[in-house]
Protein backbone atom coordinates (compact mmCIF):
# COMPACT_ATOMS: atom_id res chain seq x y z
CA UNK A 1 0.00 0.00 0.00
CA UNK A 2 1.39 3.37 -1.00
CA UNK A 3 1.68 6.27 1.40
CA UNK A 4 -0.46 9.19 0.22
CA UNK A 5 0.98 12.68 0.73
CA UNK A 6 -1.06 15.80 0.01
CA UNK A 7 0.68 19.10 -0.70
CA UNK A 8 -1.81 21.74 0.37
CA UNK A 9 -2.03 25.34 1.63
CA UNK A 10 -5.37 27.05 1.19
CA UNK A 11 -3.77 30.14 -0.28
CA UNK A 12 -2.62 30.15 -3.89
CA UNK A 13 0.84 30.99 -5.18
CA UNK A 14 2.75 29.84 -2.11
CA UNK A 15 4.63 27.03 -3.85
CA UNK A 16 2.42 23.93 -3.72
CA UNK A 17 3.20 22.69 -7.22
CA UNK A 18 6.92 23.46 -6.87
CA UNK A 19 6.87 21.52 -3.61
CA UNK A 20 4.87 18.60 -5.05
CA UNK A 21 7.35 18.32 -7.93
CA UNK A 22 10.30 18.51 -5.54
CA UNK A 23 8.83 15.96 -3.14
CA UNK A 24 8.00 13.49 -5.89
CA UNK A 25 11.36 13.87 -7.64
CA UNK A 26 13.23 13.63 -4.32
CA UNK A 27 11.42 10.45 -3.27
CA UNK A 28 12.02 8.85 -6.66
CA UNK A 29 15.71 9.84 -6.61
CA UNK A 30 16.02 7.93 -3.37
CA UNK A 31 14.68 4.82 -5.04
CA UNK A 32 10.99 4.97 -4.12
CA UNK A 33 8.45 4.35 -6.84
CA UNK A 34 6.46 7.57 -6.86
CA UNK A 35 3.54 9.05 -8.75
CA UNK A 36 2.57 12.72 -8.52
CA UNK A 37 -1.02 13.68 -9.31
CA UNK A 38 -2.28 17.11 -10.33
CA UNK A 39 -5.68 17.75 -8.69
CA UNK A 40 -6.08 21.22 -10.18
CA UNK A 41 -8.72 20.36 -12.79
CA UNK A 42 -9.12 23.16 -15.31
CA UNK A 43 -5.86 24.87 -14.33
CA UNK A 44 -3.26 22.17 -14.68
CA UNK A 45 0.33 23.27 -14.14
CA UNK A 46 2.21 20.36 -12.64
CA UNK A 47 2.99 19.10 -16.16
CA UNK A 48 4.73 22.42 -16.90
CA UNK A 49 6.75 22.37 -13.68
CA UNK A 50 7.73 18.75 -14.36
CA UNK A 51 8.56 19.62 -17.99
CA UNK A 52 6.27 17.00 -19.53
CA UNK A 53 3.48 19.25 -20.89
CA UNK A 54 3.96 18.07 -24.46
CA UNK A 55 3.60 14.44 -23.54
CA UNK A 56 0.11 14.70 -22.00
CA UNK A 57 -2.34 12.49 -23.89
CA UNK A 58 -4.83 11.32 -21.30
CA UNK A 59 -5.46 12.76 -17.86
CA UNK A 60 -6.76 12.01 -14.34
CA UNK A 61 -10.40 12.63 -15.31
CA UNK A 62 -10.11 10.33 -18.35
CA UNK A 63 -8.96 7.58 -15.99
CA UNK A 64 -11.75 8.24 -13.48
CA UNK A 65 -14.31 8.13 -16.29
CA UNK A 66 -12.86 4.94 -17.73
CA UNK A 67 -11.91 6.64 -21.02
CA UNK A 68 -8.28 5.60 -20.57
CA UNK A 69 -6.44 3.23 -18.28
CA UNK A 70 -3.75 4.32 -15.86
CA UNK A 71 -0.88 3.08 -18.02
CA UNK A 72 -2.10 5.25 -20.89
CA UNK A 73 -2.39 8.36 -18.73
CA UNK A 74 0.75 8.10 -16.57
CA UNK A 75 3.74 9.99 -17.95
CA UNK A 76 7.10 8.46 -17.14
CA UNK A 77 9.76 10.96 -16.08
CA UNK A 78 12.78 10.84 -18.37
CA UNK A 79 15.25 12.04 -15.76
CA UNK A 80 14.46 9.67 -12.93
CA UNK A 81 13.44 6.03 -12.85
CA UNK A 82 10.31 5.16 -10.94
CA UNK A 83 8.73 8.62 -11.22
CA UNK A 84 5.40 9.13 -12.96
CA UNK A 85 3.11 12.12 -13.46
CA UNK A 86 -0.68 11.95 -13.68
CA UNK A 87 -1.78 15.26 -15.19
CA UNK A 88 -5.04 17.07 -14.47
CA UNK A 89 -7.67 17.63 -17.11
CA UNK A 90 -7.51 21.08 -18.66
CA UNK A 91 -11.04 21.08 -20.06
CA UNK A 92 -13.35 19.43 -17.57
CA UNK A 93 -15.32 20.76 -14.69
CA UNK A 94 -13.68 20.19 -11.32
CA UNK A 95 -16.78 18.26 -10.19
CA UNK A 96 -15.51 15.47 -12.46
CA UNK A 97 -13.37 14.39 -9.52
CA UNK A 98 -15.74 12.17 -7.57
CA UNK A 99 -14.84 10.75 -4.18
CA UNK A 100 -15.38 7.20 -5.44
CA UNK A 101 -13.45 7.81 -8.67
CA UNK A 102 -10.46 9.34 -6.89
CA UNK A 103 -10.52 6.53 -4.33
CA UNK A 104 -10.55 3.91 -7.07
CA UNK A 105 -7.56 5.45 -8.89
CA UNK A 106 -5.58 5.85 -5.65
CA UNK A 107 -6.24 2.24 -4.66
CA UNK A 108 -5.07 1.01 -8.04
CA UNK A 109 -1.94 3.21 -7.91
CA UNK A 110 -1.30 2.03 -4.37
CA UNK A 111 -0.57 -1.46 -5.63
CA UNK A 112 2.38 -0.38 -7.78
CA UNK A 113 3.88 2.62 -5.99
CA UNK A 114 5.50 3.47 -2.66
CA UNK A 115 4.36 7.09 -2.56
CA UNK A 116 1.50 9.03 -4.12
CA UNK A 117 2.00 12.80 -4.00
CA UNK A 118 -1.22 14.78 -4.47
CA UNK A 119 -0.77 18.38 -5.67
CA UNK A 120 -3.79 20.24 -4.33
CA UNK A 121 -5.35 23.25 -6.02
CA UNK A 122 -5.64 26.47 -4.00
CA UNK A 123 -8.77 27.18 -2.02
CA UNK A 124 -10.94 24.91 0.09
CA UNK A 125 -13.36 23.91 -2.65
CA UNK A 126 -14.04 20.54 -4.19
CA UNK A 127 -10.66 19.95 -5.87
CA UNK A 128 -8.75 20.78 -2.70
CA UNK A 129 -10.96 18.60 -0.50
CA UNK A 130 -10.59 15.70 -2.95
CA UNK A 131 -6.79 16.07 -2.92
CA UNK A 132 -6.63 15.78 0.90
CA UNK A 133 -9.48 13.32 1.50
CA UNK A 134 -7.47 10.08 1.23
CA UNK A 135 -4.16 11.47 2.52
CA UNK A 136 -1.97 9.83 5.15
CA UNK A 137 0.38 12.80 5.43
CA UNK A 138 -0.11 16.48 4.66
CA UNK A 139 2.55 19.04 3.86
CA UNK A 140 1.08 22.47 4.55
CA UNK A 141 3.00 24.96 2.41
CA UNK A 142 3.08 28.38 4.03
CA UNK A 143 4.70 31.71 3.27
CA UNK A 144 5.79 33.83 6.24
CA UNK A 145 2.96 36.26 5.61
CA UNK A 146 -0.35 36.88 7.39
CA UNK A 147 -2.87 35.66 4.82
CA UNK A 148 -0.92 32.51 4.06
CA UNK A 149 -0.53 31.60 7.76
CA UNK A 150 -4.21 32.19 8.39
CA UNK A 151 -5.24 30.06 5.40
CA UNK A 152 -2.87 27.31 6.49
CA UNK A 153 -4.53 27.23 9.88
CA UNK A 154 -7.91 27.02 8.22
CA UNK A 155 -6.64 24.12 6.12
CA UNK A 156 -5.48 22.35 9.30
CA UNK A 157 -9.05 22.49 10.57
CA UNK A 158 -10.28 20.91 7.34
CA UNK A 159 -7.59 18.20 7.40
CA UNK A 160 -8.65 17.32 10.94
CA UNK A 161 -12.36 17.09 10.21
CA UNK A 162 -13.07 16.33 6.55
CA UNK A 163 -10.62 13.59 5.61
CA UNK A 164 -11.26 9.87 5.23
CA UNK A 165 -9.15 9.24 8.32
CA UNK A 166 -11.28 11.66 10.34
CA UNK A 167 -14.53 10.19 9.02
CA UNK A 168 -13.43 6.61 9.70
CA UNK A 169 -12.14 7.51 13.16
CA UNK A 170 -8.60 6.45 12.27
CA UNK A 171 -5.37 8.01 13.38
CA UNK A 172 -5.44 11.59 12.03
CA UNK A 173 -3.44 12.79 9.01
CA UNK A 174 0.16 13.59 9.94
CA UNK A 175 0.59 17.30 9.33
CA UNK A 176 3.90 18.96 8.47
CA UNK A 177 4.78 22.60 7.98
CA UNK A 178 6.89 23.69 5.03
CA UNK A 179 7.82 27.35 5.09
CA UNK A 180 8.62 28.68 1.61
CA UNK A 181 9.88 31.98 0.17
CA UNK A 182 11.75 32.64 3.40
CA UNK A 183 13.90 35.77 3.29
CA UNK A 184 16.38 35.73 6.21
CA UNK A 185 17.49 39.32 5.66
CA UNK A 186 13.93 40.56 5.98
CA UNK A 187 13.38 38.38 9.05
CA UNK A 188 16.47 39.89 10.68
CA UNK A 189 15.14 43.35 9.96
CA UNK A 190 11.90 42.47 11.67
CA UNK A 191 9.91 42.76 8.46
CA UNK A 192 9.01 39.13 8.05
CA UNK A 193 7.62 36.50 10.38
CA UNK A 194 10.41 34.16 11.49
CA UNK A 195 10.29 30.35 11.44
CA UNK A 196 9.76 30.43 15.19
CA UNK A 197 6.89 32.91 14.87
CA UNK A 198 5.06 30.74 12.35
CA UNK A 199 5.80 27.59 14.37
CA UNK A 200 4.43 29.24 17.48
CA UNK A 201 1.20 30.17 15.72
CA UNK A 202 0.57 26.93 13.83
CA UNK A 203 2.39 24.48 16.16
CA UNK A 204 3.18 21.92 13.48
CA UNK A 205 6.15 19.68 13.00
CA UNK A 206 8.57 21.57 10.72
CA UNK A 207 9.55 19.67 7.60
CA UNK A 208 11.67 22.39 6.06
CA UNK A 209 12.33 26.02 5.27
CA UNK A 210 12.85 26.93 1.62
CA UNK A 211 14.64 30.24 1.15
CA UNK A 212 13.39 32.75 -1.40
CA UNK A 213 15.50 31.97 -4.43
CA UNK A 214 15.76 32.93 -8.09
CA UNK A 215 16.43 29.30 -8.81
CA UNK A 216 12.72 28.50 -8.35
CA UNK A 217 11.67 30.72 -11.26
CA UNK A 218 14.57 29.51 -13.38
CA UNK A 219 13.55 25.92 -12.70
CA UNK A 220 9.91 26.47 -13.58
CA UNK A 221 10.93 28.37 -16.73
CA UNK A 222 12.87 25.32 -17.84
CA UNK A 223 10.46 22.66 -16.58
CA UNK A 224 13.06 21.12 -14.30
CA UNK A 225 12.01 20.54 -10.67
CA UNK A 226 14.17 22.87 -8.55
CA UNK A 227 15.20 19.98 -6.30
CA UNK A 228 17.45 18.88 -9.18
CA UNK A 229 19.35 22.18 -8.99
CA UNK A 230 21.91 21.19 -6.39
CA UNK A 231 23.77 24.48 -6.70
CA UNK A 232 20.85 26.52 -5.44
CA UNK A 233 19.83 27.05 -1.83
CA UNK A 234 16.20 26.23 -2.68
CA UNK A 235 17.25 22.98 -4.37
CA UNK A 236 19.32 21.94 -1.37
CA UNK A 237 16.58 22.92 1.07
CA UNK A 238 14.06 20.82 -0.88
CA UNK A 239 16.49 17.91 -0.81
CA UNK A 240 16.68 18.27 2.96
CA UNK A 241 12.88 18.35 3.14
CA UNK A 242 12.62 14.99 1.39
CA UNK A 243 15.33 13.47 3.59
CA UNK A 244 13.57 14.72 6.72
CA UNK A 245 10.26 13.33 5.49
CA UNK A 246 11.97 9.95 5.14
CA UNK A 247 13.20 10.16 8.73
CA UNK A 248 16.63 11.83 8.57
CA UNK A 249 17.37 14.26 11.36
CA UNK A 250 18.90 17.22 9.55
CA UNK A 251 19.41 20.74 10.92
CA UNK A 252 17.57 23.55 9.09
CA UNK A 253 19.81 25.41 6.66
CA UNK A 254 19.71 28.88 5.11
CA UNK A 255 17.92 30.48 8.07
CA UNK A 256 20.50 33.21 8.54
CA UNK A 257 21.15 36.12 6.23
CA UNK A 258 24.31 35.93 4.17
CA UNK A 259 26.78 38.59 5.07
CA UNK A 260 27.96 40.21 1.88
CA UNK A 261 30.23 43.21 1.53
CA UNK A 262 30.80 46.08 3.88
CA UNK A 263 27.22 47.37 3.83
CA UNK A 264 25.91 44.05 5.04
CA UNK A 265 28.44 44.02 7.84
CA UNK A 266 27.70 47.59 8.88
CA UNK A 267 23.95 47.50 8.84
CA UNK A 268 23.01 43.83 8.75
CA UNK A 269 23.44 42.96 12.41
Amino acid at each position, binding site marked *: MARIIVITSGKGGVGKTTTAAAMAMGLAQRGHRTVVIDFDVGLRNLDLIMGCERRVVYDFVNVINGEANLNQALIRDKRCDGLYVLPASQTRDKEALTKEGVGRVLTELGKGYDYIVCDSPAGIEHGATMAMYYADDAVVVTNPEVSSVRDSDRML*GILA*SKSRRAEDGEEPIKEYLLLTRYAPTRVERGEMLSVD*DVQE*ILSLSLLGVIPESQAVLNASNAGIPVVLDNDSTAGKAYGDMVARYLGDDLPMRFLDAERKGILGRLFGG
Partner: protein
Amino acid sequence: MGLLDVFRASRKKGSAAIAKERLQILVAHDRAFRNRPSYLPKLQQEILEVIRKYVEVDLDAVSVNYEQDDDQELLELNIVLPDAAARS
Protein backbone atom coordinates in the same frame (compact mmCIF):
# COMPACT_ATOMS: atom_id res chain seq x y z
CA MET B 1 20.76 44.87 0.22
CA GLY B 2 20.98 48.40 -1.09
CA LEU B 3 21.49 51.57 0.86
CA LEU B 4 17.87 52.57 0.35
CA ASP B 5 16.70 49.34 1.95
CA VAL B 6 18.65 50.19 5.07
CA PHE B 7 16.76 53.46 5.50
CA ARG B 8 13.48 51.87 4.61
CA ALA B 9 14.11 49.14 7.16
CA SER B 10 14.69 51.57 9.98
CA ARG B 11 11.38 53.24 9.24
CA LYS B 12 9.25 50.10 9.08
CA LYS B 13 10.99 48.11 11.78
CA GLY B 14 8.93 45.57 13.60
CA SER B 15 6.03 44.98 11.25
CA ALA B 16 6.60 41.24 11.75
CA ALA B 17 5.81 41.67 15.43
CA ILE B 18 2.47 43.26 14.53
CA ALA B 19 1.77 40.45 12.07
CA LYS B 20 2.48 37.84 14.73
CA GLU B 21 0.25 39.50 17.29
CA ARG B 22 -2.64 39.86 14.83
CA LEU B 23 -2.29 36.24 13.72
CA GLN B 24 -2.20 34.89 17.25
CA ILE B 25 -5.48 36.60 18.09
CA LEU B 26 -7.10 35.60 14.81
CA VAL B 27 -6.01 31.97 14.91
CA ALA B 28 -7.10 31.55 18.54
CA HIS B 29 -10.51 32.95 17.64
CA ASP B 30 -10.84 30.78 14.51
CA ARG B 31 -9.88 27.66 16.41
CA ALA B 32 -12.32 28.31 19.24
CA PHE B 33 -15.07 28.70 16.68
CA ARG B 34 -13.99 25.65 14.69
CA ASN B 35 -14.15 23.34 17.72
CA ARG B 36 -17.68 24.30 18.65
CA PRO B 37 -20.19 21.45 18.43
CA SER B 38 -22.37 21.77 15.36
CA TYR B 39 -25.59 21.56 17.40
CA LEU B 40 -25.03 24.94 19.08
CA PRO B 41 -27.11 27.15 16.75
CA LYS B 42 -30.08 24.77 16.94
CA LEU B 43 -29.74 24.49 20.71
CA GLN B 44 -29.76 28.26 20.99
CA GLN B 45 -32.85 28.49 18.78
CA GLU B 46 -34.81 25.88 20.73
CA ILE B 47 -33.93 27.31 24.14
CA LEU B 48 -35.09 30.69 22.92
CA GLU B 49 -38.40 29.20 21.79
CA VAL B 50 -38.99 27.55 25.18
CA ILE B 51 -38.22 30.75 27.07
CA ARG B 52 -40.46 32.79 24.83
CA LYS B 53 -43.35 30.52 25.80
CA TYR B 54 -43.13 31.89 29.32
CA VAL B 55 -41.33 35.21 29.16
CA GLU B 56 -41.44 37.87 26.48
CA VAL B 57 -37.74 38.18 25.65
CA ASP B 58 -35.96 39.62 22.64
CA LEU B 59 -34.91 37.34 19.82
CA ASP B 60 -31.26 37.89 20.73
CA ALA B 61 -31.80 37.41 24.46
CA VAL B 62 -30.16 33.99 24.56
CA SER B 63 -26.46 33.69 23.97
CA VAL B 64 -24.61 30.41 23.92
CA ASN B 65 -20.92 30.28 24.54
CA TYR B 66 -18.70 27.23 24.27
CA GLU B 67 -15.19 26.92 25.59
CA GLN B 68 -12.82 24.04 25.63
CA ASP B 69 -9.83 23.54 27.87
CA ASP B 70 -7.49 20.61 27.98
CA ASP B 71 -9.60 18.67 30.46
CA GLN B 72 -13.03 20.27 30.40
CA GLU B 73 -15.70 21.67 28.14
CA LEU B 74 -17.78 24.60 29.26
CA LEU B 75 -21.17 25.39 27.80
CA GLU B 76 -22.35 28.77 28.98
CA LEU B 77 -25.92 29.97 28.49
CA ASN B 78 -26.75 33.59 29.08
CA ILE B 79 -30.38 34.67 29.08
CA VAL B 80 -31.23 38.33 29.34
CA LEU B 81 -34.65 38.82 30.93
CA PRO B 82 -36.57 42.04 30.28
CA ASP B 83 -36.69 44.82 32.90
CA ALA B 84 -39.06 44.27 35.82
CA ALA B 85 -41.15 47.24 34.70
CA ALA B 86 -41.71 45.72 31.30
CA ARG B 87 -42.91 42.43 32.75
CA SER B 88 -46.63 41.99 33.23
